[in-house]
């Protein structure tokens, strides 16, 4: 069963990494990156590196997410035509 867990983890890490790179919407890329941070932490857990997992959760999923979200909203206010709400 652990093999399944590791395989799924590897696949989802690759998927999120590619998604972060390919996303045209910056906000989506940031949220994807936060998801990537959490999955990375789980990967560290599976590699028996609990201390790195703790740091990854705090920095990758927590603080970097906050900083990037802040940066994106500044950027979006500076260039309003890049707003994701493209329904009109």
């Amino acid at each position, binding site marked *: 069963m652990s093999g399944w867990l590791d395989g799924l983890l590897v696949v989802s890490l690759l998927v999120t990494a590619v998604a972060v790179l390919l996303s045209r919407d910056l906000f989506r890329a940031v949220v994807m990156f936060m998801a990537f941070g*959490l999955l990375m932490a789980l990967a560290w857990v599976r590699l028996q590196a609990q201390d790195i997992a703790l740091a990854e959760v705090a920095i990758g999923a927590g603080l970097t997410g906050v900083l990037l979200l802040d940066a994106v909203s500044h950027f979006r206010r500076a260039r309003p035509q890049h707003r994701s709400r493209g329904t009109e």
Partner: protein
Amino acid sequence: MTLLMDTVAVVLLLLLVVGLLRIWLGPEPADRMLASQLFASTGVALLLVLAESQAQPALRDVALVLALLAVLSTVAFVTRVMQVARADSRGERRDV
């Protein structure tokens, strides 16, 4: 018991991966934040289950930190969006 816990972990990870789709699709930014909330709660459960099945008590601390810090990103998102909405309602930004 360990087998059951590992199975539970696989199921939770699978649900988490399905949640990725909502981050990708989510038409509104709020939908994407919601999916990241799903990531936080499922991640906490996953870490607690792994702490038992791998017998690593330190993972409970990781789960605690995740539960505490996941809100921060939501708060950051909300404060920024609310500022933009408030600026909108004051009529500062009519450049759409």
